[in-house]
């Protein structure tokens, strides 16, 4: 009966008051900025932790003033203990992977720009959207709380391998309540990401404007859509894994703890569990997580690059299909993290094959970028340079993946600095470059002001050269057998490598310090930057058809109509060398 049923409403009214407008906001744009701000705080903490680690590696007996105030037992007298080094390492990895690489390129930019790029007023479920941010913030606070408990943060690494992570305080410092807080924080984080992913998918499927067919969505929107599909399934596996781990730790079950385990001279009261089970569950999430970090980066870079090249990429469609194949293959490769885990060697071969296959779509994407660069009149600015820097990092870091994907080579390189160099370049730094590129590109839209280009370029060159100085030598260190996760290298053959380690530490401190240029630029431009027009980069997608910054309902209550594919550059349009998606001009040969 019709009067018993009403149609669905997804828009919300404008709100007044600071608290409702900027804190408990339902507006996807404010939530996007909140995610971005959270990622900024997390990246700052994560970077300071990496400084502490690099400092300790080369000056293991030097005192770090003030550190003893936070870590009484971890750094007595300001000198980091080997155990506390592992705590720093665990927290660095956890903060960077979850709260930076997942939050900024996906949740941050995605929240802000996905609805605008498809012509929607907001996300499909604004309340869930607010909830997902606040859940993530709670996870962040719970995780950081581990620094301030007597025991300190866990020492089990961001992968929290069982049984080390499952036993409790017998296993070492930070493995009591520190590890509990870690598991709870990651569990809460999963809930936030699940809500966010659900929202992204529903919004993309349901709220596209008239004329916005799936293939007319910008590559960035496609990337967020594919990423949210991966996230929905990946975090749905990590959450149960965290539940099982928490039960092992707090309820006395034995999912991951084997029989007869003696730790700290005590026989553990558990039996029959499988440590490999944790690795399977964790990496079944963990490998797709790599693509949760990198696919939005691929999307952002493709979007920025097309605009900077002033001509369409060789094939936007092939990039989209390649991203889909990467997303699909990401579910079949988790075992390549476990080649030396004692898993059946035959399984290693089975995991190696799809891992090598995944390089095909990744290479296709890279070749499309490089091929599109040929003969293009690229616009010189911070956004385009960081996009090019991303490609450079993606290739340099990705090439070492070919080696690691093969079990026979990985057995030698496993747990060395080669692996650390590989994933920092291809996943960490590359995604960070895409975040920078996106920031310089979209800042005018988000704030209504331009960022300072001189500072941007300075920031780019120091960061670009600096990251190569840090992470390229890692590969060499790994090849000569420098193992990872050691707090100091004073024995055996390691001292000869110390000069190189010192060079890396100095590069890390310098590159890290250069990020304050970016931070200053961000704050200064927010208030003092040159006012930005609605379309300062002469872009074609929907975000450039609205004022900078956009009004609360994005399109001022109008319903945009989309007439074209997203990247109509290099044409003779009525307004220049481009035709906007909302322009009713007819394009010959479209």
């Amino acid at each position, binding site marked *: *009966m019709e009067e018993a049923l009403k149609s*669905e409403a997804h828009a919300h009214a404008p709100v007044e008051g600071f608290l409702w407008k900027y804190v408990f906001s339902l507006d996807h744009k404010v939530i996007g900025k909140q995610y971005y701000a959270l990622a900024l705080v997390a990246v700052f903490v994560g970077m300071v932790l990496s400084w502490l680690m690099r400092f300790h590696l080369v000056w293991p007996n030097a005192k770090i003033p003030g550190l003893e105030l936070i870590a009484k037992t971890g750094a007595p007298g300001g000198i980091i203990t080997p155990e506390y080094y592992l705590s720093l390492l665990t927290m660095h990895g956890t903060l960077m992977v979850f709260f930076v690489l997942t939050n900024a390129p996906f949740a941050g930019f995605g929240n802000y720009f996905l609805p605008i790029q498809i012509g929607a007023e907001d996300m499909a479920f604004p309340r869930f959207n607010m909830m997902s941010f606040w859940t993530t913030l709670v996870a962040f606070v719970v995780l950081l709380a581990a620094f301030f408990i007597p025991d300190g943060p866990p020492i089990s690494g961001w992968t929290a391998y069982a049984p080390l992570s499952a036993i409790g305080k017998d296993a070492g410092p930070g493995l009591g309540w520190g590890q509990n807080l870690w598991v709870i924080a990651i569990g809460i984080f999963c809930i936030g990401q699940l809500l966010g992913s659900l929202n992204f998918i529903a919004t993309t*499927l349901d709220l596209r404007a008239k*004329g916005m067919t799936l293939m007319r969505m910008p590559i960035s929107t496609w990337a967020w859509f594919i990423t949210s599909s991966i996230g929905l399934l990946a975090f749905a*596996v990590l959450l149960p894994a965290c539940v099982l781990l928490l039960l092992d730790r707090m309820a006395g079950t034995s999912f991951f703890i084997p029989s007869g385990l003696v730790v700290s001279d005590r026989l553990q009261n558990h039996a029959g569990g499988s440590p490999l089970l944790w690795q399977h*569950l964790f990496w079944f999430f963990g490998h797709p997580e790599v693509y949760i970090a990198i696919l939005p980066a691929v999307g952002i870079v493709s979007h920025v690059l097309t605009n900077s090249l002033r001509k369409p990429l060789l094939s936007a469609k092939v990039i989209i299909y390649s991203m889909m194949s990467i997303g699909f293959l990401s579910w079949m490769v988790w075992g390549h993290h476990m080649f030396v885990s004692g898993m059946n060697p035959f399984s290693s071969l089975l995991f190696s094959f799809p891992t090598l296959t995944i390089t095909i779509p990744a290479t296709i994407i890279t070749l499309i970028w490089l091929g599109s660069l040929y003969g293009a009149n690229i616009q010189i600015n911070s956004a385009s340079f960081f996009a090019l820097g991303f490609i450079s990092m993606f290739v340099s870091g990705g090439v070492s993946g070919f080696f690691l994907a093969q079990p026979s080579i990985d057995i030698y390189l496993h747990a060395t600095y080669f692996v650390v160099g590989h994933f920092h370049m291809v996943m960490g730094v590359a995604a960070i470059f895409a975040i920078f590129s996106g920031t310089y590109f979209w800042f005018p839209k988000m704030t209504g002001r331009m960022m300072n280009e001189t500072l941007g370029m300075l920031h780019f060159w120091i960061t670009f050269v600096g990251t190569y100085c840090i992470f390229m030598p890692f590969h060499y260190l790994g090849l000569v057998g420098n193992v990872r996760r050691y707090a100091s290298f004073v024995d055996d053959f390691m001292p000869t490598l110390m000069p190189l380690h010192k060079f890396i530490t100095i590069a890390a401190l310098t590159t890290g310090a250069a990020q304050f240029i970016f931070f200053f630029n961000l704050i200064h431009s927010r208030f003092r930057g040159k006012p930005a027009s609605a379309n300062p980069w002469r872009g074609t997608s929907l975000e450039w058809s609205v004022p900078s910054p956009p009004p609360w309902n994005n399109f001022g209550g109008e319903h945009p*109509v989309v007439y074209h594919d997203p990247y109509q550059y290099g044409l003779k349009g009525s307004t220049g060398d481009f035709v906007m998606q909302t322009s009713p001009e*007819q394009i010959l040969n479209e």
Partner: protein
Amino acid sequence: MSSTIISPAVLPRRAGPAKGSESGIWIALFAITMSFAAFTSALFIRQASSDWTHIAAPRVLFLSTAVLLVSSLLMEASRRELEGQPGPGTNEHGRRLAFVALTVLLGLTFLAGQYLAWRKLAAEGLYLATNPNSSFFYLLTGVHALHVLGGIAALLYLFIQLAVQKSVRRNLLRGVVVYWHFMAALWLYLLVVICVRL
């Protein structure tokens, strides 16, 4: 470089109507399926261990299964009531409320059945950490019960909307219906796992 001319453009294709809650629920079902797939995979790996035993499923589970299936049928009837045309001379509003209320009641009865099953196991000395089988029993039934509780909350929201405003959003209704059916289907799957594997 191709060129453009200014002229009335080709009429764009329409996007489909927004489905809101209904889409949201369908997407959530993928995540829930994935979570239970993860639990099941964990079970398959864990059962290879020598301490894997067997526990007899409490009989009350079959009763609660029947209750949940009937509630699923009632939910379907409620949907038809709400979406169909009213018959002449009937108290349409009261009937609708009664159908939804009964569904909620049966959902709560199911949870009571699960509680009895836990009590039965505990009376046999089988607790969460006693052996891997009991761990998985409590885990699977517990996580499912939490999801059912979420469904009951959604049904109560539907009931209140219906009682106060005499109407509900079509997509909300469809979303709740799909979710409730899924809970029954998921339970049937878990019952098979419990009977065959635990």
